[in-house]
């Protein structure tokens, strides 16, 4: 069974091994000792803090309870842009019209903004390729919503998630080639990696003025707000939870940013408290996402062996063990999948 729990220092070896599998371009978890070490330390201290540090980095791991092996990781950044500056391009609309001449055209613009400053961010999701099956991906992504539902004071009112932007079959980002390269004169990969360490160079080099997108090459224009093929499933998952593209994109590859008020995310809004009753339960058609209510002892998993009636959740022994709960404890439950609207 797959269990989500906060990261611990002795996850080092497992996470270092996972990082080796991420491959280039995965800047939020780089194949680098220092990087992984810093992730773990930030994560451990986030859960340990009594009060809410807005900048905290809540790092979770997914453990296979059968083998004890760590096979995935995910994180929430309490608030972005509080230490480093957070940049995005806002995609605006501009109408060029002269009624006298009968001219009317809509253009689009890109304007540098820090509008997401202070927002919480979903980040660093990575699942071992061997485990990309059944409900694992959904659990790894959505467990964060139950944590946020349980501890809203640790987070901003608004949640964002950056989607990797479009690149072609050769890994080339047409947006970078059409815009960023003129100003940064370095490779996309280099810029992307640098930006995780220090963003001063962005302030120094980036274009300060609003850009008219119609002056960019067509391939660059087409890439604005377009998600990388490999990230489309992740985007669809977050959209099914109510996250929406609100016309902000990454300044390097123009990947879309998704956004939602935390309290309007389905898994946050629809999750409910139940009292756990441990007993044998036949599998139901619909899987549930379920968590306990602890912070540093947070546990989350999925289960079909759950039956809800009024405020009682019947669940089986395996699930109780995974969540580290006893009979009568309070649990938070939400259907794993959003209902399709009729």
């Amino acid at each position, binding site marked *: 069974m797959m269990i989500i729990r906060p990261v611990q220092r002795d996850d080092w070896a497992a996470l270092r091994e996972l990082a080796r599998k991420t491959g280039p371009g995965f800047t939020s978890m780089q194949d680098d000792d220092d990087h992984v070490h810093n992730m773990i330390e930030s994560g451990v201290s986030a859960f340990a803090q009594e009060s809410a540090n807005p900048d905290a980095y809540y790092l979770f791991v997914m453990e296979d309870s059968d083998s004890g092996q760590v096979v995935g990781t995910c994180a929430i950044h309490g608030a972005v842009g509080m230490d480093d500056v957070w940049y995005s391009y806002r995609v605006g609309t501009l109408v060029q019209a002269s009624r006298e*001449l009968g001219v009317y055209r809509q253009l689009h613009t890109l304007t540098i903004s820090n509008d997401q400053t202070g927002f919480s961010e979903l980040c660093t999701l990575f699942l071992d390729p061997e485990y990309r099956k059944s409900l694992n991906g959904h659990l790894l992504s959505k467990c964060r919503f139950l944590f946020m539902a349980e501890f809203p004071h640790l987070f901003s009112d608004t949640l964002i998630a950056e989607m990797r932007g479009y690149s072609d079959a050769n890994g080339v980002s047409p947006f970078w080639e059409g815009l960023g390269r003129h100003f940064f004169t370095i490779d996309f990969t280099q810029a992307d990696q640098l930006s995780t360490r220090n963003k001063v160079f962005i302030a*120094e080099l980036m274009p300060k003025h609003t*850009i*008219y997108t119609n002056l960019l090459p067509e391939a660059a224009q087409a890439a604005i707000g377009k998600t990388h093929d490999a990230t489309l499933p992740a985007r669809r998952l977050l959209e099914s939870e109510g996250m929406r593209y609100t016309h902000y994109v990454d300044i390097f590859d123009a990947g879309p940013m998704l956004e939602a008020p935390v309290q309007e995310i389905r898994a946050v809004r629809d999750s409910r408290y139940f009292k756990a009753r441990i007993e044998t339960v036949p599998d139901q058609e619909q899987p549930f996402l379920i968590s306990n209510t602890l912070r540093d002892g947070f546990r989350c998993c999925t289960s079909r062996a759950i039956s809800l009636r009024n405020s009682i959740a019947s669940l089986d022994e395996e699930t109780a063990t995974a969540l580290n709960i006893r009979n009568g404890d309070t649990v938070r439950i939400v259907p794993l999948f959003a209902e399709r609207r009729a």
Partner: protein
Amino acid sequence: MLIIRPVDFPDLPQLEQLAVQSRGSITTLPANREYLGQLIGLTQSSLRNRVSLPGGESYHFVLEDSDSGRILGISGIEACIGLDSPFYSYRIDEVVHASRELQIHNRIPSLHLCQDYNGTSRLCTRYLAPEANEAANIHLLSRSRMLFIAAHPKRFARRTVVELQGMVDDEGRSPFWESLGRHFFGMDLSQADYLTGINRKTFIAELMPHYPVYVPLLNEAARNAIGQPRPDIEPVMDLLEDEGFVYRGYVDIFDAGPTLEVRTDDIRSVWQSRTVRLAVGDAPDSAPWLLLSNDHTEDFRAVLVRANPERPQVAPEVAAQLRLDDGDSVRVLPLGTDDLLI
């Protein structure tokens, strides 16, 4: 003989022919009878008015073959541009984007919409019929305006500008317009020129790109056109540079042709011209080429003759054309070289 004189109402039909012949290449010479009529009216009223500070006056002169009455060219001066509606230019600003840490030092030029030439005088509407396009006529048509300025300094601003037509490709299209202006105006350059010519300029405020345009984002042909005159008007540019006009990084907002400027007092023909006594008699054959003009307003006349610059003697018919008698004061500008007719 060929003379310069103020344009007048009987010239309207011939002026219209010139405008048609110029096929819209001169913004301020649109083939629009109503506008051309106003241009004549404005010249006549400007000449009649007593002026102590330059304002909305406009002075247009024609090159006439006094024998046939044929009009071969036109040139003008606007006393003060940008009074009625703003006079727009692009100013090329170069900004260094540098990161010491990354050892990057990029010079990025951008085009800024500006009105820095509001309040200057402008040489304009210079058009010479193709059959008259020879050096002597270019000098007479262009430089006689400088003599008018020298004679009436209070009528003009401290600085004078002149716009040169920009680069065109093999099909006669402006690569700069095609790459930039068309996106915003949604019309052909000729139409934009025409609307500007007839002074319906509201559309510029409505449709111009107001954000600075980064030059590296333009295509190569457009970049190369910035500040470049159309090759066939290079002789005009040479003449203007010889007069002291310099290019300071301002270009036309439509075709990116260079705008040249000069302190009005520093125009070579203005400070080198001087008044001497005119003698009437036999004209010499081998004297240097001179521009001669009277210092009148409505009766302004200029001619190109060979004469002694210290005490020019001209044939009676020349004096008559100049509206001067023997002993009258005449303005003289030696052209400096004898290679005029090459």
